């Protein structure tokens, strides 16, 4: 694929134009979905289950309905149409039906004049429960035949079992080559997306009996598709417009308040706004699957993998959500970007009465990555090898065959990534305050003084502090997999306004903070050679764009915008040929015409002697050229349910991190001193946005390594707040040095490779490896806790009851 203008277009592809929403967000003026308002609107509130598993004996809404200012109190009996929905399996009740299956499950919704009244009314609903024993242990859910079933109509608690078999790890002839065998178990806790803008939206009833929903989501059309049957409306009567999204990271793939607010609006014939508060938000969206993983790696004396076995259990919680696809990723990418001919991977996605889990940045690949990277370090240690060297030796490359039998097409430059990573400068040796310094100092730019482990807590002046270095590598599939045709649609329009050509781009693609609106305009400017490009609000008035997930929007919606622009360009040239046939001589071809600087040129670029033929304003006049195009990626195939073989993925992306940490080994506190990352992105489309993605992905991986976990006990969520669900602050995020490689993918638009997720994968194992190196402890569960790292001696578990 070639760019059609040889002179870079101002603010086009490869530039870093500022995002239109940037200043507004920083100054607090951006309108998020929680800021929506309509004349005469009501406020919705949700009553949620206090139990992880219980039978609903009785619901009495009369007291709530009788309260002044309350306009509707709805339960499952009031759902107009289909009573369940879901992204893959429609097993999730709109409101609980006869049974609740997780702590926080919606049971009833209320609309009232104001939020406080709505919340008080929700509390006034009487629900009588018969509490049942929850299924909270995913190992039991998977393998204990005596375990209760989360869904009585299913034969077991397994959402999906996906093995991947390649070669035979148990073959006798392999054993002679084996020098070391490492078997370990790993655990990943439940991470939350922790987006800052809580679930919110505004449902407005329309005159034709339908509903207009303004909502923060990741995929407008899949919301519409799930909502319409539940509301008993044809899809065209359920129109969605994207409202300002305050982060997503997968947590807005599943529906939250969409149907509830719409039901209330249809019932009351008034606009209804719903906004979750922070606590409710923790119950209002799916989380990252916790995982229990058992791995065996065998290597020969040179460090080459001989065979690998893995069993991964992924806790999907009460409803299926996207567990099916998460299992597909964990299974197919289960041993990472390494060549190995004899592999058995078994991945299970399970139903439990824990909070539902689904999409989160990295999507099944994150959990596996922590395990296989920890294994690579273990194998290296057993052989006395360097951790980078063992990764180099086993690294995939173009043409490598994955355990699924899929051959990697196009560049897979893992060795180049690692070679680059080790050339990056290390930080200076630790310079901690002298013992006796009265108190910690603030980090002054330019002055070399590190915050010690413990941060601002004044816990060490160097006592117990040891430094460690660790590496991590990850591989992530880009776009939807396993036969899913997640196409995108773009409508592009070119017209003259005020004498200037203006391109407008209309898609349903969700800007969730990643910078897609900026990129769509960059593509239009580059492809159409114009300076002015506007991106229209995303809504369902244009075809589906697919989800802002799987690092796929630059690829898919970028591809759709590019394709639509190409169609517009051809039509413009055709218009020029009809209007001004004399522009070209007989030996010149209309196919050599390029659009740049608001004009048609013969030849590409002024430097190569291109000739200006006509201004776009003259060619178009009052004509408007518009084209709508769909973009589809290459076909993929499902994994065989028995063997796990199949070309299931569209594209692969890789990144590698090095982490340098200081650990207070006596207190078990960690300070990440520096991180270095190398990522191959195929082609840099917008460096500023890209760097932001790599920063953010690294930070989210740091959070999983060191602090982010939704803690549950017997299915009950214990820390639904930002007081106790900790995410990294600016003082936790170290300087991040980046090297970005551009090995173009021959199959993708501009050669790009999806970039949002890979850094989230490799950041976590790099940090954990560095902490292990510092403290010498095995650390097989994340997020790490101080009591795992510190040697706690002499204090038995004498804990009493929990306070609040």
């Amino acid at each position, binding site marked *: 694929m070639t760019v059609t203008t040889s002179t870079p277009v101002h603010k086009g592809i490869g530039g870093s134009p500022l995002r239109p929403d940037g200043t507004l967000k920083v100054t607090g003026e951006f309108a998020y979905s929680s800021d929506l308002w309509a004349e005469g609107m009501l406020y919705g509130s949700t009553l949620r289950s206090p139990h992880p598993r219980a039978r609903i004996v009785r619901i009495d809404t009369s007291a709530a309905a009788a309260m002044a200012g309350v306009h509707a109190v709805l339960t499952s009996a009031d759902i107009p149409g289909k009573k369940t929905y879901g992204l893959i399996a429609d097993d999730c009740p709109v409101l609980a039906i006869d049974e609740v299956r997780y702590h926080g499950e919606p049971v009833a919704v209320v609309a009232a004049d104001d939020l406080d009244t709505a919340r008080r009314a929700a509390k006034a609903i009487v629900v009588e429960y018969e509490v049942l024993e929850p299924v909270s242990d995913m190992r039991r859910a998977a393998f204990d035949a005596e375990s209760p079933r989360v869904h009585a109509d299913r034969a077991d608690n397994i959402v999906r079992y996906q093995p991947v078999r390649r070669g035979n790890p148990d073959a006798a002839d392999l054993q002679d080559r084996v020098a070391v065998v490492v078997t370990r178990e790993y655990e990943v806790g439940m991470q939350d997306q922790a987006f800052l803008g809580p679930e919110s939206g505004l449902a407005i009833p329309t005159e034709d009996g339908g509903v207009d929903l303004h909502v923060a989501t990741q995929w407008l059309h899949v919301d519409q598709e799930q909502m319409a049957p539940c509301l008993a409306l044809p899809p065209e009567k359920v129109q969605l417009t994207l409202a300002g999204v305050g982060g997503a990271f997968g947590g807005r793939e599943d529906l939250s308040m969409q149907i509830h607010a719409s039901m209330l609006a249809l019932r009351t014939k008034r606009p209804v706004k719903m906004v979750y508060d922070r606590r409710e938000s923790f119950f209002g969206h799916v989380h990252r699957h916790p995982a229990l993983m058992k791995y065996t790696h065998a290597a020969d004396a040179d460090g080459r993998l001989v065979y690998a076995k893995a069993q991964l259990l992924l806790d999907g919680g009460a409803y299926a959500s996207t567990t099916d696809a998460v299992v597909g990723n964990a299974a197919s990418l289960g041993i990472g970007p390494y060549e190995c001919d004899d592999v058995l991977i078994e991945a299970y996605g399970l139903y439990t009465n824990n909070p539902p889990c689904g999409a989160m940045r990295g999507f099944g690949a994150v959990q596996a990555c922590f395990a296989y990277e920890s294994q690579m370090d273990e194998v290296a240690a057993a052989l006395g090898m360097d951790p980078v060297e063992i990764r180099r030796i086993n690294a995939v490359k173009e043409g490598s065959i994955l355990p699924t039998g899929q051959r990697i097409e196009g560049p897979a430059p893992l060795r180049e990534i690692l070679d680059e990573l080790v050339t990056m400068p290390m930080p200076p040796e630790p310079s901690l305050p002298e013992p006796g310094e009265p108190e910690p100092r603030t980090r002054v730019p330019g002055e070399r003084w590190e915050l010690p482990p413990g941060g601002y807590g004044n816990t060490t002046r160097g006592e117990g502090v040891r430094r460690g270095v660790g590496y991590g590598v990850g591989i992530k599939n880009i776009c939807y997999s396993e036969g899913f045709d997640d196409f995108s649609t773009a409508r592009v329009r070119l017209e003259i306004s005020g004498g200037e050509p203006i391109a407008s781009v209309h898609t349903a693609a969700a800007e969730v903070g990643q910078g897609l609106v900026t990129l769509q305009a960059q593509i239009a400017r580059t492809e159409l050679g114009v300076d002015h490009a506007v991106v229209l609000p995303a809504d369902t008035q244009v075809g589906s764009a697919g989800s802002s997930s799987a690092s796929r929007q630059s690829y898919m919606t970028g591809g759709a915008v590019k394709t639509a622009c190409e169609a517009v360009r051809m039509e413009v040239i055709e218009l020029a040929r009809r209007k001004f046939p004399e522009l070209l001589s007989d030996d010149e071809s209309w196919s050599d015409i390029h659009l740049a600087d608001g004009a048609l040129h013969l030849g590409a670029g002024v430097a190569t002697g291109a000739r200006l033929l006509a201004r776009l304003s003259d060619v178009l006049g009052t004509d408007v050229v518009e084209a709508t195009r769909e973009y589809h990626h290459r076909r993929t195939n499902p994994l065989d349910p028995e063997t796990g073989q199949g070309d299931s993925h569209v594209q692969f992306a890789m990144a590698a991190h090095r982490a340098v940490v200081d650990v207070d080994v006596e207190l078990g506190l960690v300070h990440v001193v520096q991180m270095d990352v190398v990522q191959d992105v195929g082609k840099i489309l917008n460096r500023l946005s890209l760097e932001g993605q790599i920063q953010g992905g690294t930070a989210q991986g740091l959070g999983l390594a060191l602090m982010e976990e939704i803690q549950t006990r017997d299915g009950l969520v214990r820390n639904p707040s930002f007081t106790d669900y900790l995410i990294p602050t600016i003082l936790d995020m170290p300087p991040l040095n980046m090297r970005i490689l551009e090995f173009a993918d021959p199959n993708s638009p501009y050669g790009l490779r999806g970039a949002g997720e890979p850094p989230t994968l490799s950041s976590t194992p790099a940090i954990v490896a560095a902490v292990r190196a510092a403290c010498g402890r095995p650390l097989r569960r994340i997020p790490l806790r101080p009591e795992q790292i510190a040697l706690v001696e002499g*204090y038995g578990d*004498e804990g*009493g009851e929990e306070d609040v």
Partner: protein
Amino acid sequence: MEFITADSWTDALRIKTERPGAAPIAGGTDVMVELNFDLRRPEALLDLSRIRELKDWDVVGGSVQLGAGVSYTRVIEELADRLPALAMAARTVGSPQIRNRGTVAGNLATASPAGDAHPVLLATGAVVEAESFQRGVRKIPVDGFFTGVKRCALEPDELIRAVVIPTAAGPQQFSKVGTRNAMVIAVCSFAIALDLDARTVGTGIGSAGPTPLAARAAERFLVGELDWDTLKVSEAAAARFGKLVAQAAQPIDDVRGTASYRKHALEVLAVRALGWIRGCA
């Protein structure tokens, strides 16, 4: 919910007597969280933030009289020399925004066992000045102030006017363990204050019991073991001091940490603090 703004201290005391159910609010960094989470619905809020008299601090007879409306930021900027441990604790409170709003008196009134200022107030022997419209001022030593988890000795008609904290007469330290570098509730915390004139030791433990605690046995032990001229203490005695501090704690397992880790960490912090105190001498 009614919002009442008091224009003067007398005004505030009168309102609190008439409306004992009104929740006083100064910085709001605790109260607003509780309201937002719907953990409490007081009949009214009594805004103290406009009362001039509460916004000052003064030195009276060797102690700092810290007005109830003085923010943590001002403690850090204006009192780090006189009240070093309190300034250290103030630096670990929340974020800059929270430190601009939050107050030591507010911390006391909500009486959380995790309040960052509390161990320092215990270690320094601070006194809470509570006042009611009808009964006047009552001085409550801080070690009798905390009566239970989030409960304190204030009567329904009382408001905190000031906290009286002895000016440092020797080295002081405060340390707080949290699982991120800033803006974190303490997993546990420890404060120590030496009075070189009186040759006494004060300690305070946070987030490791139903209330903030003082390690009295550890204090008595250290008074005897410390060489008061050099502030040196034998390694064995320092280790013993650490154990005694840990023994004074009554921690539980919760989402922030385990009881056994808290005891371990307090021991480590106590031993380290002794080392730093020598450096300060």
